[in-house]
């Protein structure tokens, strides 16, 4: 057993998050899946830092967390705004810019 198990776990979580983004239609669940994908990438960063014996990977994971937090704030505000006008949290509803 070596640290690459963490990378495999990270790849699995990333794919599960991808399935959630593509299959689910509720905007909030899609958003949670995006968070899961970001976390999977973070796990890979932390593991790479440990494999290479340098803290740079942890700093990058820290930056990913900062960006994810601000992304959550703006994204949830968007969901609330869309819900207020369309009365729906489905990602298929906002289709006015389709054509």
């Amino acid at each position, binding site marked *: 057993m070596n*640290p690459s*198990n963490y990378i495999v776990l990270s790849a*699995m979580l990333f794919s599960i998050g991808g399935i959630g983004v593509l*299959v689910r239609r509720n905007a909030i669940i899609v958003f949670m899946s995006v968070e899961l994908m970001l976390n999977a990438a*973070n796990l890979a960063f932390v593991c790479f830092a440990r494999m290479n014996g340098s803290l740079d990977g942890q700093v990058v994971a820290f930056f990913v967390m900062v960006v994810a*937090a601000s992304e959550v704030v703006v994204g949830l505000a968007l969901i609330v705004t869309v819900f207020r006008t369309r009365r729906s949290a489905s990602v298929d509803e906002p289709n006015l810019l389709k054509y």
Partner: protein
Amino acid sequence: MNTGEAVVFWICAILAVSGAVGMVISRKAVHSALWIALTMINLAILYVANSAPFLGMVQIVVYTGAVMMLFLFVLMVVGVDSSDSLIETIKGQRIPALLLTLGLGILLVWGIGSSLTGAPDAGLEQANTIDGGNVQGIAHLLFTSYLIPFEATSALLITAAMGAMVLAHRERWVVKPTQKMLSIARFRTGGHPGNLPNPGIYARHNAVDTPALLPDGTPLPESIPAPVRARADIAPVDHVDLHDVRAISEGHSK
């Protein structure tokens, strides 16, 4: 990786993957939020196992603390029972999407997993002790080589906060009614000045359905609360009871 870490890894990995799968297959969004909170906590434990205690704590505080609470808050605003619609906007999109992502997952796991068999495992013991600890080491890097990105994140956070305020702000289109306007509107339609009379309480049964009595002995239906009045649940005035009550209140016993 020693035995203890292997045990921690397998427990947390299984819990994290089951949390992720539960998040994707839950019908209700609240259940999804709880499942992904499980995943986040297990990832935090795995960070600590990877000698990243600072990131583990940040993961718990930021993700399970702040982000998931924000998600739950928005879920409550949007409506807890807003489950998925089964209508596919793009016909037959689900199955190919599922298969392609599964293919991506197999490719990632197989490709990366097999390429990492002889990977180095330097460990962070030296990097964590050189500045006196993990937090000090990260702080050293943040304020030296990563100073510019670190400053940029402050601009990002301020922009995100501003963006959320602008997006969630709702302009008031009508004037907020003052207390004076409210009372004028109330009395123009013939509202009752002051409180309505209480129901007549004779603590013998469900007292709120007992109407209060006017001085001449007639019952006053307005003294019954409106919901009780709406289902016509008004107790008839029992004059024998009334006689008893009057006798008790005047100090005579029967």
